[in-house]
């Protein structure tokens, strides 16, 4: 079945530094969703990307979908302690609601 690989697994940054997590698939993706899970919390939807080469921004967060629709990235500019958590990419089916999650990237931010 389809899988998405996410790197890195962990990232420790100093507050104010940038952060990027990458999501890769061997097959073409119909869409990619990004979720954030705070420690002890549940996944919260951030965004969905559908179009080839799509770039979307949410304040300090920039999401990108690759031209070949096989990879995606999430970039956070000038991290803050509130950015701490695990960021998951998830492949969403265009026919059903099944989500296939990556392993996640856990971000720690040192104040």
């Amino acid at each position: 079945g389809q899988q998405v690989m996410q790197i890195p697994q962990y990232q420790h940054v100093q507050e104010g530094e940038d952060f990027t997590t990458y999501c890769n698939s061997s097959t073409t993706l119909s869409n990619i969703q990004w979720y954030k899970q705070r420690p002890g919390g549940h996944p919260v939807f951030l965004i969905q990307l559908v179009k080839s080469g799509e770039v979307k921004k949410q304040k300090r967060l920039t999401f990108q979908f690759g031209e070949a629709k096989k990879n995606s990235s999430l970039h956070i500019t000038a991290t803050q302690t509130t950015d701490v958590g695990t960021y998951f990419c998830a492949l969403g089916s265009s026919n059903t609601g099944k989500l296939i999650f990556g392993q996640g990237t856990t971000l720690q931010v040192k104040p």
Partner: protein
Amino acid sequence: DAGVTQSPTHLIKTRGQQVTLRCSPKSGHDTVSWYQQALGQGPQFIFQYYEEEERQRGNFPDRFSGHQFPNYSSELNVNALLLGDSALYLCASSFLGGRGNEQFFGPGTRLTVL
């Protein structure tokens, strides 16, 4: 407007027992999906219910079963519990069968099997 709710919050069971977890979807949503999240891992899809039927199933044994009621709420049942079933069980709701739509997750039920 209440979001997705799940009960109970925590549960401790012993091997071989059976457990039922409950989920109420976000208002206006008609689809419920269940996920298992082991510690340090991403959520794994168990199955999805739409129009009171199991529409899709992940790679989980028949010990995992579910149900959706006419009011769209759902139950997840796990029989013959194993130690490896210890995990956070997440319910997610969506609209129109969840086709490519964002999913709203509940707070989860933390199941510990001793």
